[in-house]
């Protein structure tokens, strides 16, 4: 008997152990945070000091975030984390906002998956969170998001309202039935292409910096054929360019080349761009415009003459940049930040390597231009049952005012005047505010924010409920001009501190970009994917990118372009063009 009892116990135990993972898997699903939104009284002493607004009792706002612990760098002091840091404590104490994270994941794909799971399980969404692309459209279609027009009108910082007006054209993704469902966060808008050339190679060969496309072609020719690095080997090319994703990408892009030849902006690996506006007010797809042939002919010639990296078609931007870093190519287009990574790597191979930024070349008809990188970085959306958007704006406006740094701004919090938190993003040493390079300035080690003397990247702890960093487009331009005029000028505003942190080459690059004063070519379609884009978009992307490369590589003759355009239109392109114009007629 006791023998069986023992066995029974044993088997019961084994079942329990076996089931354990199932049980825990189930309990994970029940991890729904109850909405806690007590009715709260907001107290703001007077309308002139809006920054003093404080909520009592504290309001809980839930959110979610991607936190890739490995690559984010120095975001927190030891012992602090995304869920427990100086900013969260400060917010709770001074604004009365208690931030809770519904989930923190390490990859953005996981973030989207989480959102989809919440959607399909009907779980409670975070109060305020970031969303984009397909999950955003699903949330909109499921009517889970809050319309924001009223809240923007009532609570938003006037400067932010103006931004929403100015860049409203780019917010098609979050507009539905005439209402706005998401708040945009912006890019700086300082990534416009400049032309980077090895000045030491120009000097060696006795060449002038090219001002026109024809002169550039000559520079490429000389760089390819005349051994600019004087190593007696024919191992250099002119232009390093990634073509794996077509003419337009985030680094090494060729927008300066097509913009010198035509007003059409061209992109092949994304069906949502570029949609150019014609004289008739209609939108058309740049990659199938007859003018694209001018671009293709130029690239084809350069490729067959060997001026371009032969392997451009199989390289993405980072891979392509290895060519300039290793001293095998002398020209690369790209944003001003390239002055640090990847171009400064060239000096590792050759101490004399000197990449300088130059204005973009003009085409035969005097055209000069570049394409605009979308200024919208993402959208912050709100659960439709979220009651405390006023509190959210209270924190947002503070952050916005801090970016704006305007005299007499009632939202500007004087407690953040010097920086956010002493001992975190700045230290005071000999009555001076020091941000970064603590050791060089002579700050004693016990005052450094981090033991190794490096600076703390505050963006991660400041973002929390905002869903994205607060950036004002083009707000870098004035500080850049200031430091161009006087490299040793004292930084005053925090924007100026940020710019001061840039490498000299980067500031030079920004200067070239700003001073050339180009109106960037816009993408006029900013709506969600149209039905035909969804079903045929991938096919068309593949067709366009493949056809472009085949023509550039000479696998197909120039005449193939017309064949490609016909195929593009027949396989859904015609329908997409109609849908895009329908959208544009409704939303422009």
């Amino acid at each position, binding site marked *: 008997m006791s023998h069986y009892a023992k066995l029974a116990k044993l*088997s019961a135990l084994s079942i329990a152990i076996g089931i354990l993972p199932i049980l825990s898997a189930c309990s994970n699903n029940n991890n729904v945070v109850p909405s806690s939104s007590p009715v709260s009284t907001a107290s703001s002493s007077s309308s002139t000091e809006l920054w003093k607004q404080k909520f009592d009792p504290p309001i809980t706002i839930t959110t979610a975030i991607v936190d890739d612990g490995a690559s984010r760098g120095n975001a927190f002091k030891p012992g602090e984390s995304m869920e427990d840091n100086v900013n969260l404590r400060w917010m709770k104490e001074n604004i009365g906002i208690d931030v809770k994270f519904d989930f923190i994941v390490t990859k953005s794909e996981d973030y989207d998956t989480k959102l989809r799971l919440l959607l399909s399980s009907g779980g409670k969404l975070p109060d305020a969170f970031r969303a984009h692309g397909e999950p955003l459209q699903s949330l909109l*279609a*499921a009517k889970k998001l809050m319309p924001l027009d009223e809240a923007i009108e009532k609570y938003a910082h006037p400067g932010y309202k103006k931004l929403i007006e100015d860049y409203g054209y780019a917010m098609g993704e979050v507009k539905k039935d005439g209402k706005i469902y998401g708040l945009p966060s912006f890019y700086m808008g300082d990534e416009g292409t400049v032309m980077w050339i090895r000045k030491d190679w120009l000097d060696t060969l006795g060449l002038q910096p090219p001002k026109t496309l024809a002169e550039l072609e000559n520079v490429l020719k000389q760089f390819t054929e005349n051994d600019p690095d004087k190593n007696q080997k024919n191992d250099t090319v002119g232009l390093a360019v990634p073509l794996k994703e077509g003419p337009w990408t985030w680094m090494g892009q060729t927008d300066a080349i097509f913009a010198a030849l035509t007003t059409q902006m061209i992109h092949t690996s994304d069906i949502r761009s570029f949609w150019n506006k014609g004289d008739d007010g209609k939108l058309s797809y740049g990659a199938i415009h007859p003018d694209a042939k001018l671009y293709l002919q130029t690239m084809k010639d350069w490729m067959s003459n060997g001026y371009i990296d032969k392997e451009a078609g199989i390289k993405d931007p980072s891979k392509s940049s290895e060519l300039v870093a290793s001293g095998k190519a002398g020209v690369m287009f790209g944003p001003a930040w390239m002055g640090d990574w990847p171009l400064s790597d060239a000096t590792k191979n050759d101490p004399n390597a000197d990449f300088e930024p130059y204005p973009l070349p003009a085409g035969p008809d005097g055209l000069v231009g570049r394409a605009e990188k979308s200024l919208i970085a993402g959208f912050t959306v709100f659960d439709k049952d979220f009651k405390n958007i006023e509190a959210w704006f209270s924190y947002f406006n503070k952050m916005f005012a801090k970016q704006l740094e305007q005299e007499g701004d009632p939202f500007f919090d004087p407690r953040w005047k010097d920086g956010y938190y002493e001992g975190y993003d700045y230290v005071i040493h000999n009555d001076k505010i020091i941000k970064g390079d603590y050791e060089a300035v002579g700050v004693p080690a016990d005052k450094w924010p981090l033991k190794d003397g490096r600076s703390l990247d505050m963006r991660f702890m400041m973002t929390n409920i905002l869903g994205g960093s607060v950036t004002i487009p083009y707000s870098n331009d004035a500080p850049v001009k200031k430091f161009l005029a006087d490299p040793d000028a004292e930084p005053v505003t925090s924007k100026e501190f940020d710019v001061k942190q840039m490498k000299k080459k980067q500031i030079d690059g920004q200067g070239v970009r700003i001073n050339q004063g180009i109106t960037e070519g816009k993408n006029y379609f900013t709506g969600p994917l149209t039905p035909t884009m969804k079903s045929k978009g991938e096919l068309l992307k593949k067709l366009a990118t493949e056809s472009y490369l085949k023509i550039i590589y000479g696998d197909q003759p120039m005449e193939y372009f017309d064949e490609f355009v016909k195929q593009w239109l027949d396989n859904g392109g015609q329908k997409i063009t109609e849908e895009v114009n329908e959208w544009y007629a409704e939303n422009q």
Partner: protein
Amino acid sequence: MATYWRKTWPFHMLLLPALLLCIVFQYIPLFGAVIAFQDYQPWLGIKGSPWVGMDHFRYLFTYPDGKQVIWNTLIIAAFKVAMNLLIPIIFALLLNEVRKMYFKRVVQTLVYLPHFLSWVILGGIMLDILSTEGGIVNRVLESFGLDSIFFLGNGHWFRFTVVLSDVWKEFGFSAIIFLATLVGINPALYEAAEIDGATRFQQVKSVSIPLIMPIVIVVATLSLGRILDAGFDQILNLYNPLVYSHGDIIDTFVYREGLNNGQFSFGTAVGLFKSFIGFILIVISYRLAYKLANYRIF
């Protein structure tokens, strides 16, 4: 019978957790496959999403690139299945003949190491070593007076490169199972063959090969089920617009469609289609194995 149950029921209970796990995590999710016949929308769920019948399957076959993609998959996968069987067997047989234990172990360790590298890393390395501008492979070709080859930018060479690099990465690992079988062969058989005057080569032919044949059939049968898996992560990291026409496979196609547009139903439909073909092939090869080699796995 009754006494049998009374005696053994605790052991059946011990089996229960595993069975439950299998049902919960392997069989219940199978019902999710019905979304292949729906236009699945996450917020409507399986119950609420509209039914579309075979639309997604039709889409795969009528899609202008559909045939090309399926053909590429079959070609690449067929070569991979064949080579990944042949090369490890040959390698195992050769290594088995090596007398020096030390050398044998070193070689074995070295050849299965690549198995543990991810294609993300290998993709970058291959771009460098196969480069037409100073890549080591083309340097060697040039030193023999041959033209350099654009391995990753030319469709035909691309398929060749994909198959070869996959075999290089996996053959050491696949050989383990054959080596283990070879080690397990009774030495008496070799001794008997030697006494009968068989040479090394004859020993391999008459002892080693027949005795590893059952395992070869098992491995071959199982790998036939993967005939539509041409190696997603490998191709994704190596392909580019220049070789779409020869290198775009079902998985990369679904990845682009699904990831960008969130077409869950379509992805599921393709997955179901692949499983279906794989299932048929396994059944056929299983029957063949039984008929030809009189061998049953189950």
